[in-house]
């Protein structure tokens, strides 16, 4: 008797203690949901965020990936992130990371393509599509320059940048990049209309070959002017530097006449410098005419930085004399020439001028 009836009854009662209240509450829930539209039911059992999800579904472009910005350490955010991936499928949806990471990639300019949706549990808008301005990469400005420091005893180089915020407060990230130069980004906050000079991003006083570019990213539009300042004792030489936006680079994807490089032994030898600030290795095709002969070469620039092109990259490049150089570079690449006479204080740099289509 105990074994056949009492034991099952005890086991059933022990399970029913938990299940019976659930059955009652489940009955009430089913009864309450009866007749309600599907999305209302989902909101009722899964939370208000699903109403936002419903609105988002019609708002998101079909062919674009969706990046979910949210804190993966928060359980509720994680739940919403996972369920959103499911409910939006076959849209390509991936968790992106917290908001701080989005700001980092905006500053670095490497914002992936697609829509960004922020997950904010516990707020009126649990899922919110971020506006294009909130996710756009910070515009980039580049100040490329070369500083031939070989034998530059007693010469100090530095760059000065004059920045002015236009209409709104702007944060500017500044750093120097190049061979032998790698400064950590420095943040400068400019009030609206404020102008400020920054002269310690790049400074060198030792020998060696220095090649650098100043790279700027600004959250809002800023005006910038730059110059390279060389000092030796009381003597000061200022060389204006171009401030370029990537789209304005003279040899980005087209043929240019770099310069007629008139050289003499006294004036120093021209050298070529390559700038590739893209994420992939880049190729620049070069041809030049010197002494009646035309030479061609393909220059390969490593990704993400600056490089001085080795002497053997351009076979036949004359030590002196006139040279007409034509370049066809990939986007994000820039090649320029520089020289410094052994006795001169400042480096001379030469930039190309667009000549149209490839001949």
């Amino acid at each position, binding site marked *: 008797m105990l074994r056949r009836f009492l034991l099952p009854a005890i086991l059933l009662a022990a399970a029913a203690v938990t299940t019976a209240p659930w059955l009652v509450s489940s009955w009430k*829930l089913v009864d309450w949901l009866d007749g309600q539209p599907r999305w209302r039911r989902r909101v009722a*059992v899964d939370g208000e965020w699903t109403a936002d999800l419903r609105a988002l579904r019609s708002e998101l472009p079909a062919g674009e990936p969706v990046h979910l910005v949210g804190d993966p350490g928060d359980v509720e955010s994680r739940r919403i992130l996972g369920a959103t991936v499911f409910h939006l499928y*076959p849209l390509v949806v991936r968790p992106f990371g917290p908001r701080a990471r989005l700001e980092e990639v905006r500053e670095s300019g490497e914002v992936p393509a697609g829509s960004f949706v922020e997950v904010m549990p516990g707020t009126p808008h649990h899922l919110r599509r971020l506006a294009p301005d909130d996710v756009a990469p910070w515009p980039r400005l580049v100040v490329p320059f070369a500083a031939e420091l070989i034998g530059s005893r007693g010469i100090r180089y530095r760059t000065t940048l004059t920045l002015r915020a236009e209409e709104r407060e702007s944060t500017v990230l500044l750093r120097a990049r190049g061979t032998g130069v790698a400064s950590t980004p420095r943040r400068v906050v400019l009030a609206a209309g404020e102008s400020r000079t920054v002269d310690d991003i790049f400074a060198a006083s030792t020998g060696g070959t220095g090649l650098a570019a100043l790279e700027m990213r600004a959250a809002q539009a800023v005006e910038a002017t730059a110059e390279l300042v060389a000092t030796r004792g009381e003597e000061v030489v200022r060389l204006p530097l171009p401030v370029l936006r990537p789209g304005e680079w003279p040899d980005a994807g087209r043929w240019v006449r770099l310069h007629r490089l008139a050289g003499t032994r006294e004036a120093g030898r021209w050298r070529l410098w390559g700038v590739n600030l893209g994420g992939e290795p880049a190729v620049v095709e070069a041809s030049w005419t010197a002494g009646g002969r035309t030479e061609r070469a393909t220059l390969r620039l490593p990704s993400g930085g600056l490089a001085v092109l080795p002497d053997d990259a351009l076979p036949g490049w004359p030590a002196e004399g006139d040279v007409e150089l034509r370049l066809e570079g990939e986007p994000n690449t820039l090649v320029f020439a520089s020289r410094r006479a052994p006795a001169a204080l400042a480096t001379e740099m030469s930039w190309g001028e667009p000549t149209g289509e490839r001949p």
Partner: protein
Amino acid sequence: MTGLVAAALLFGIPGAGWLLLLRRPDGAASWGSAAESFLFGVGASGTALFALGWMGFPLRGGVFAVPVVLGVVAGLVGGRRWRQERSGRTADPAGGPGVGRASDDGAPSPASRRSRWLHGAIVTLLLLPPLAMTLAHVESVPLVDWDGRNFWLLKGRAILHEGAIDGPFFRGETSRHQHSQYPLMLPLAAASTWSALDGTDEREVRGLYWLVGVALLFAIRGRLRREFGAMPADAVAVVLAWTPQLLWREGGMLTAYSDLALAAFLALGFFELRDRIAGRGGEAWRAGLWLAFAVQAKNEGALLAAIVVGVALVAALARRQKIAPLREGAALVAAPLAAVALLAAWRSRIPLLEDENYSALARDLPARLGELPGAIVALLGAMAHLDDWGLFWAAVLVALGVALARRERRLDGCLCGGTIAAALGLYAAVYAASSGWELHELAVASGARLASHLVGPAAVLLAGLLAARPQTSGS
């Protein structure tokens, strides 16, 4: 309800067909055999679709119909075979070797008809509330579970969208793909249901998961009734039907997890093997098929199948059974090994994304053996939690002690106890090796759910305890 009916037909019909080919029919329809047919249909269709997908067939409407057609053909061939055999032989009440079994319900005697009716009415009344309520819940309340949405059903949608099991989604090239190397039986079954209904709404596949849970209950009940009689079997089924973990906790029949399918395949493989050892008509190769389905249902399936096979072989050797070990052993392990090989071949194409790294766990285990006692305590603590399992596992522990103490039930004690202990030891070892997690957190998150995998062997122990008279465990 459309999804429920579609799933019942899509898997129930071919499953019945295959079982008709593979074993002698019971003679009388029963809930138990219907449940086994459905589960066999899910297992065989899922495995067949996985193999077709691996071979590069596009998983679209026509290919999804292949397992159904094969099942129907198998049923026609099997039915004809048994009809010919029945008409060609004289009466053989005991049935031949390898017979599945006679009726689930036993032969009613006129004197006990009223008590049988009363018994049936009480059992129905007790089973109805949880099953009806969960069905109403499935039909009315949207799915909200974690694993179902994060990967199981998401994989099903991806299979349907890409028509492949190794497309861009599975290679991690599109949406987030967690647990990229999990087996795909249930996602394939879901995709098959969606394909039949021309949709991808999760409402349409919740019936499939509910049916798997209900089929688990009725398959266990059917098997127990054949051996222990109606009362113990029904009592166990009723207790299980009210158990929160099997009903509405994460991993239960209201969620889109694969745990109940794994539990069902493992239980049926275990029952078949146990019947074979006890000389009750089980077949090693049929056990192998169920265990192969367990391998294809979840990652744990391969190890749990190995445990079932290992414990059964030890028990068979201990009984010095007159079986041909090599032939039987080969028949037993052939299908599970083929399932493991198929999974391994598929996994070689799929990068490991946000998934468990089992080789790393195995490597780390020796250094973390000190955590094992704590892991065992945490796991047992989760199983003893009243809100998840009631007193089920406490009763199973008592039943195990009783079975081991009785000579005539010692085989069951060894088989069931050995399987349960080895499986829990395995899970505890995984807990211990999982660095970066608190044991308590792991147990709370998964302990009660993992215990559901062992509900088949546990039910045997419990039914043995509840049986009116001591049952012999074998001939």
